[in-house]
């Protein structure tokens, strides 16, 4: 029983990171109908920027802020300069462009910071699990921080989309560019902002993954594949689906590696992806509805 609780907590913590990755993908998909394969590369760059801030002698919180802020800027710049040109082109163009961006960002990361892996990012929170009596669980102060940080970003995003005029304008732009323009919304700016906000969620995932793994230009590949699966499982159109999908996949993988062995985790991810795509290709959280086009 204690093993089960242990594995569940570990899975929950990992799942929150996948949720953040999935949320970043979903926000971009909703805003611009582009699957952002460059997400992992963007998060890698912003995490390295955070590490550089720490190397220069600044504290963790400066680095944390630098990661999110550079994510915001990077997301906005990439949308404005590169992705804008393929948003109205056939979908395959956007796929090729974001895949190309991923390769480019990975190469740039290697050029600047080197391709060999370096030690993980230190945090002010202990990575060790909480101890109850004699047992130590796989969930500690850092995990608490991680869960709260992801929840905080989610709550802020939901509040922005639900309760502000800006959020309403962004949603209208995502659903119907024509109607949005006709009520005076500057749709282009909303799409840029959509990418910027999504990149914040992605950067958050990066800086939260970093303390547990050695840093290299490919360090976000794994979390990104799993986050992508979570987004597809939950439905690319649904932010709540992304969150539930992320936590669900996190738990599932934790049970697989806990009871079957860690080697089964990645095949299990892809297995889940294939099964969901066969049974419910539109994702578990998609609302079946007729779209007026």
């Amino acid at each position, binding site marked *: 029983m204690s093993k089960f609780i242990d594995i569940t907590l570990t899975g929950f913590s990992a799942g929150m990171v996948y949720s953040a990755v999935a949320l970043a993908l979903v926000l971009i998909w909703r805003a611009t109908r582009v699957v952002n394969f460059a997400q992992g590369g963007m998060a890698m760059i912003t995490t390295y920027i955070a590490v550089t801030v720490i190397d220069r002698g600044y504290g963790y919180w400066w680095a944390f802020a630098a990661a999110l802020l550079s994510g915001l800027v990077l997301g906005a710049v990439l949308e404005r300069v590169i992705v804008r040109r393929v948003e109205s082109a056939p979908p395959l163009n956007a796929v090729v462009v974001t895949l190309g961006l991923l390769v480019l960002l990975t190469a740039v990361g290697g050029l600047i910071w080197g391709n060999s892996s370096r030690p993980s990012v230190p945090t002010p929170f202990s990575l060790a699990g909480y101890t109850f009596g004699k047992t130590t669980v796989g969930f500690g102060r850092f995990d608490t921080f991680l869960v709260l940080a992801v929840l905080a970003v989610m709550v802020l995003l939901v509040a922005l989309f639900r309760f502000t005029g800006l959020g309403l304008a962004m949603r209208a732009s995502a659903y119907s560019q024509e109607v949005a*323009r006709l009520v005076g919304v500057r749709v282009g700016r909303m799409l840029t902002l959509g990418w910027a906000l999504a990149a914040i969620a992605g950067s958050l995932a990066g800086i939260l993954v970093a303390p547990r793994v050695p840093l290299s230009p490919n360090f976000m590949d794994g979390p990104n594949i799993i986050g992508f699966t979570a987004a597809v499982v939950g439905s690319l159109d649904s932010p709540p689906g992304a969150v539930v999908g992320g936590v669900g996949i996190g738990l599932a993988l934790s049970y697989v590696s806990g009871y079957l062995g860690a080697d089964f985790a990645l095949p299990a991810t892809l297995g889940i992806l294939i099964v969901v795509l066969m049974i419910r290709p539109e994702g578990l959280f998609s609302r079946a509805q007729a779209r007026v086009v």
Partner: protein
Amino acid sequence: MLAVHELTTNYGAVCALDGVSIEVPVGQITAVLGANGAGKTSLLRTISGLVRARSGRVLLDGDDVTHVRPEDLARRGVAHVPEGRGVVAELTVEENLRLGGLFRKDRTDAARALREMYELFPPLAERRSRSAHTLSGGERQMLAIGRALVARPRVLLLDEPSLGLAPKITAQIMSLLRDLVAGQQLAVLLVEQNARSALSIADQGVVLGLGKVITTRAAADLASDVALRHAYLGF
């Protein structure tokens, strides 16, 4: 007042508008009539800037707004309700109405305008938190007109508000338009396939054929010209 001078628009090699000139006075309804493909929808889309004019001018109170982008023209008081899709289906009724007032500086009046729409269209008040795709065709059209009116426009461009609606609902919407113009400093440009009901409420009628203005006359005049009605208006 809205005026269009010698407006010409192409879709690739196809000429959609060919030197169209129309004046849309304040306090009046100007109906644009004609068969499918006559250029009615192209006219509205070119005025609001969704389609680029090749030549000619669009004037709003004397200012040249030909190449003003749709989002900027909307903020200057031109509300365009496009054909059959003037609402965001995924948003709720209330959110659609709020969209109309999003860029109003006067927040109190925007809120007042929103309340007025619920009085004007009681079915919308009952469904304010339902998403727009659950509405009937008539309710959707009410919502589209409502979100345009929340902006308190000076010019209202309506594309086929009767499309797909039962005759009774069409009559309701038309008489509503009449009341609106009577009460406000509003110029309405109404594009309609349903010439009979459009002429019943319009002050002025413009007949388009293959992108050109065939004739511009008082609505009553047009309605009584049997030969013209048979040739262009189909009733």
